[in-house]
């Protein structure tokens, strides 16, 4: 039963991912991306990662893609031109990238056993506690450093967008 739901979610994710790339209407691309992220959240939920599933929906479907849609609506993009006009070289590069990335994922997954693969087990599996402790404990420096990088990015964006040069 679980395997069936997992396969369905995975198939939905792959179909939406293809639609997100090949469809000619930008708004449909974004919607397909939303569908893909929801399907991935479903996969997280199946393996008991409730927290990650919720965060996946909140951050990607709920925040980032709403901004994408907002930009598309403001710019009034109705159709994308030039899909599939690349040469053989691009196609070859794309294939190599896909095979390389997919191979890396499969290789990494094959090396994990169910026993050693799960970092958190027991009652806290899937909850927010271990993630919170890791972010404010052992990974505190990286966590704070990312916020500095993001602040720098925001300041740069504001500087680039201001009108009176």
């Amino acid at each position: 039963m679980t395997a069936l739901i997992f396969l369905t979610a995975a198939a939905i994710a792959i179909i939406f991912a293809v639609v997100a790339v090949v469809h000619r209407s930008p708004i449909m691309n974004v919607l397909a991306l939303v569908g893909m992220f929801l399907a991935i959240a479903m996969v997280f939920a199946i393996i008991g990662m409730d927290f990650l599933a919720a965060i996946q929906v909140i951050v990607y479907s709920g925040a980032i893609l709403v901004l994408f849609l907002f930009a598309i609506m403001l710019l009034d993009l109705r159709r994308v031109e030039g899909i599939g006009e690349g040469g053989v070289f691009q196609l070859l590069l794309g294939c190599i990238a896909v095979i390389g990335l997919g191979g890396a994922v499969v290789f990494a997954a094959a090396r994990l056993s169910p026993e050693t693969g799960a970092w958190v087990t027991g009652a806290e599996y899937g909850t927010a506690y271990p993630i919170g402790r890791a972010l404010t404990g052992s990974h505190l420096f990286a966590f704070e450093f990312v916020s500095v990088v993001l602040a720098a990015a925001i300041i740069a964006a504001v500087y680039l967008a201001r009108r009176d040069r």
Partner: protein
Amino acid sequence: MWVDAAVIGIKLVAVVGVLLMTVPIMVWVERRGSALIQDRLGPNRVGPAGLLQPFVDAIKLLIKENLIPAGVDKLLFVLAPTIALVVALSLFIAVPFAVDDGLELVETPIDGFIVAPDLNIGILYIFAIASLAVYSIVLAGWGSNNKYALLGGIRASAQTISYRLAMTLSVVGVIMAAGSLHLTQVVTSQSGVWLGFLPRWNFLIQPLGGIIFIVAAFAETNRLPFDLAEADSELVAGYHTEYSSMNFAAFFMSKYIHMVTSAALITVLFFGGWQIPWISLPGGWMGAGLSLGVFSAKVVFFLWLFVWVRWTLPRFRFDQLMALGWKIMLPLAVLNFLWVGVAMASGILT
């Protein structure tokens, strides 16, 4: 086994039924309440005190032609109201609306008869599903191929992004005080007294967070004074300008169901959920019934607050709305959870 199945069935039918029934009742309260506030009569012809008016309206909507105008993007046009209704109805699942300790049905102990599935991420689930609601508005605005609808959709997405931040940050204080994302634990953490005599409600401990959450809830439900997305004097009807019949009804119903969910969330997060100050509830079916009554009373009060505010305050200008969200509410929300942190560290709040 069959008891579990029956429990799930009863729960689904009861919750969805109550949610859907609140729509006509709230429409009646809204119209009679506005009449009361504006010193006029309101609908009083159909049924006693006009009570049957919303049902007549519903029949009118049902038998109207479901018009899909030429030039709209058909898929998005139909998808938008569907998303609106699905999101509105799935939100309420995670709201704990009564205590359910030691309940038994035909001598089988049943867990979660009243409270929703035991989600350890309760509040995050609600935020996650609620964040999808903006798609219905954006897609309706875009798919309608109408400039008023598009402007409504753009306004709505900007507004939702702005207020979602303040709303989420105002809840951080609640989660800190409860030490859990689990909504039932958020409610039980508000039992007892604080400083010796005050009920330990989050609204009294962190009033700033409570006020920010309530204001953001008004913005999230797109009601006055934040109804910029459908400001009738500027945008005809905003994102649902082109909708008629049941497609329009789907938007209309989802708006009122969102109101109920928001009122329930305000109650759970800041006003102690189903608890009565200074009194501990009995267990079993009596406690369940009593707590359900208390919870409903609080929700009804906040529903009336929604109506009350709508007919009292005028609409903001769009730049005022954005300035309020980003320059005032966001810093205040940060201040709120700093206060909770200080209070927890210094032992005022233990």
